[in-house]
Every structure is written in C-alpha cells, then in structure tokens.
C-alpha cells in the first residue's frame, strides 16, 4: 500500500469536506456608494464553524464586505451591491428574503458595545420576543440564562439581571451584546472590531468567547489588530483598496503570506 497516496487522498477529502462546508459564498461582490466604488469583484467564501478574520488598512472595504453579508448596507442611502452572496446556497439579496429574518440568522456585534437602555434580562429577551422564539416566562428565563452562559457572562451578572445593561463595564457590555446576538439562534455572527473599545483583559475574554463560539456558529470578524486576527481566526482575508488581496489559512498568512501587500501590511512596512 502506498502511504503517500493515502495521505494525499485524505488531504483531498479534507479539502472536499471544507468546500462542502461553505456557509456563505460571496461571488463577484462589488459595492458602490453613489458614484464611488468601494468593493471590486470580491470572491470570498466563509467556511462553516470557522472564524474568518478580515484585515486591511482603513478604507480597504473590509467592513463594507462584512455588512453585505447581512445586508446592513441596505440602510445606507445610495448604496448598491452587485454580484451575489448566498447563505446555505440561497441568495440573500433575493426579493423574497425577509431582511429581519436574515439578520436573525446572520447576527452582528458592533465596535462599541450598544446595549439597549433596559435591564440585562430585557436586552437578551428582546430579540426572542420580537421573533416569537419564546412564549412563557420559563422559556424566556431559559433563553436568557443560556445566552448569558454561552457568552461567558452569566456568573458575573446572575444576581443583577434586572439592573440596567448600561451599568456593566465595557467588556461586560460587549459580551452582553454577543449574548443578545446569540439569543435569537443565529447561524453566522458578524463582528465589526468588537474589541477596539476594550482593555486587554476584556479583549482576552471576548477572544476566548469567539474561540468557543466557533463550535456552534460561523464567525466573521473585522479587526484592525493583526495579533487579534492571528489569535482568534483560522482563515484570514486581506483587503486593500477595495480588492481582496489574499485569503489563506491564518497560520500561513502570518508566517509566509503569498502576496507582497499582505506581507507589507502585517509586518508594518511601507508598501
């Protein structure tokens, strides 16, 4: 028996498995803000149960791309998206798609923690309530506890669930926002620089959380911190001037990237 060929077969199978596990597929995605073109024919696949980090200098289009995934760009006037984006092979820009339902499946966490000016409990219960995911008080209690548990926040707040969410520390507020995103049972969670307003300890807790969430969710994270991308992601995509420059395994990206622009950017060199 030829051992080499067996290894090759295994590798091919693995590749096939991962191909079959694309959660979201972006094909020739271009975005225009009025006359200005912000993204140029981006082809990027998001793998299931994987943390994909989007990196690149300011204005490179990484946040724009992130926002196309759950149609957050719809809210910006004059914004036009071409190409196609699919979620489990269904076009998210199809006329029949209910945007509210789409955003329940593809949740989002923002740069600044933005809890509602309500109690911790209500912050979490709000989503399941408007989506009709829970009915009885027991249902709500369960979903609140579960979400807070998954976000690693339950033990810290269990005695003050009915105090305002805005009274928590910045890091706790951000994890509350993640718990709120989890509460509606999303499949994909988009994070737009979720740690940029947090101190290193709170950042570490959120990163640990991202790492754990991967088993249940697919995560796409935009970050300005190279080290954060290296720490939390398995795949990294590098954007530059509206183009996708390189997408690779994070291990490869940070040891021996293929593209000179990636190299210059992650090493902090003049391009």
């Amino acid at each position, binding site marked *: 028996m030829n051992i080499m060929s067996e290894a090759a077969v295994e590798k091919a199978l693995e590749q096939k498995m991962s191909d079959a596990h694309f959660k979201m597929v972006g094909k020739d995605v271009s975005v225009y803000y009025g006359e200005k073109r912000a993204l140029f024919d981006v082809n990027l696949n998001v793998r299931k149960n994987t943390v994909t980090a989007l990196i690149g200098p300011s204005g490179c289009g990484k946040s724009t791309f992130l926002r196309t995934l759950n149609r957050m760009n719809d809210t910006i006037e004059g914004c036009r998206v071409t190409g196609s984006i699919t979620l489990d092979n269904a076009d998210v820009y199809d006329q029949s798609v209910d945007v509210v339902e789409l955003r329940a499946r593809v949740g989002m966490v923002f740069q600044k923690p933005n809890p509602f000016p309500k109690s911790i409990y209500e912050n979490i219960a709000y989503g399941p309530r408007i989506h009709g995911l829970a009915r009885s008080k027991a249902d709500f209690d369960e979903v609140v506890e579960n979400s807070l548990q998954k976000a690693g926040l339950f033990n810290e707040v269990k005695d003050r669930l009915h105090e305002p969410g805005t009274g928590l520390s910045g890091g706790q507020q951000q994890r509350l926002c993640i718990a709120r995103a989890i509460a509606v049972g999303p499949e994909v969670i988009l994070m737009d620089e979720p740690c940029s307003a947090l101190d290193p300890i709170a950042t570490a807790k959120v990163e640990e959380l991202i790492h754990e969430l991967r088993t249940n969710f697919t995560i796409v994270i935009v970050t300005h911190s*190279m080290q954060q991308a*290296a720490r939390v992601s398995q795949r990294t995509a590098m954007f530059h001037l509206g183009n996708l420059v390189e997408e690779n395994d994070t291990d490869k990206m940070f*040891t*021996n990237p293929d593209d000179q622009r990636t*190299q210059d950017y*992650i*090493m902090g060199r*003049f391009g």
Partner: protein
Amino acid sequence: MSSSHIMTAFDEELKYLTRRISEMGGLAEQMVAESVRALVHSDLALAQKVISDDVILDDAEREIGEKAIVTIARRQPVASDLREIMGSIRIASDLERVGDLGKNNAKRVVAVAGSGIPRKLARGLEHLAELALVQLKEVLDVYASRSPEKANSIRERDEEIDAIYTSLFRELLTYMMEDPRNITPCTHLLFCAKNIERIGDHATNIAETIYYMTTGAQLEGERPKDDNTPSVGATGA
C-alpha cells in the same frame, strides 16, 4: 529587505541582530583558522588566544538571544520578520558551536605539540580546514546578501569536506598501526579532523536556516553525505 518598517526602532533592532551575527561569524572564522595554524605550527600562545576568544562568542550568542526575545515580545513580528529573528537565534547558536570546536582544537595543541606532525598529515588537515573555512565564509556572505539560491550550493559542497575527512581518517589509522607511539597524537588529530568536519555541518545548518529565513520554505531533499568513516575498519585502512 525591500522596504523598511513604519516603526524605525524595529528596523534598528533587526539591524543590530544582523550586525552581531556578522561579527560572530568573523570571529568564529578567525578562531578556526588560528586553531589549525596553532596545531600545525605547535604555537601554544596562539592556541591560548583562541581558547580565551571563545568567551566573546559565548557572550555574543547570549546577547543575540536576549535581544531577539525582547524584540519578539515588543514587536510581535510576523512573516519574514519573525523568520529573520528565529533564524538569527539559530545561526548564533551554530556559530557559537563553531567557536567551541575551534577552541577544542586549540586545547589539543599541547598534547600534539611534542610529537611533530608528519608533513603530509599537516597538509591534509590544513586542506580540510581551508575547505571548511571557505564554506563558512561563503555562508556568511549568503547571510549578508540574503540570497537563497546560493544556500543550496553550499549544502552540496559539504560533501567534499566529508570525503576529505574520510581519507584523513584512513591516513591517521595507518599511522597508528605503524607505530603505537603515534596513537596519542593521532587520536587528538582525529578529534581535530572531526571537529573541522563538524564545522562544515554547522555551515550547512546555517545555509538551511538562511534558506528558510528568506523563502519561508525548507530546503528540499536529504543532505548530500560522503562521510564514510562509520564503515572504515582497521583492516580496511
């Protein structure tokens, strides 16, 4: 390096490592050359100088290691920067070993000095050392120019050193069989030859490290080997 870092202090740190490695390389070369000269000419004073010079190399290796650790901690280098720093740690330790081998040769000068080395043996040893030194010099040039394509040819030439070492090994065995009084000096010379052969191996290590540093890939294939001494027996000599 095509472009420089936005943080100039980072460039300074990388330059410091490069400069120290080059200095170490120069000193290691000199120590090896002097140790062989001391051996061939029974020059005890020169041998003593080589022995005391080794401390400088040891210190340099330690300093490079410490600077590299601090740079990693402060800059979190990635990609070729990270490979460069890891490479400098490895190269420094290879060069430190080269210094140790030179020092070991120098220490044997006393034991060999009285017996008078046959002219032919001395020439063989000098030739072996010349080759190892060329190897070392070239690998240091490759380090300075960062040209990975040359790293491969250095590795191939290590074969020649191995072949000469094998023939010296046979010769030394012959001398020992001729007259048991030769055994003491010849055994020391055998160690010296082995030390020099090892220097070639370290040069090859460095070549491989430089290749990885510059390309991010490992040199393909097995190292060429022509060291047949494990199978040389007294009767076969």
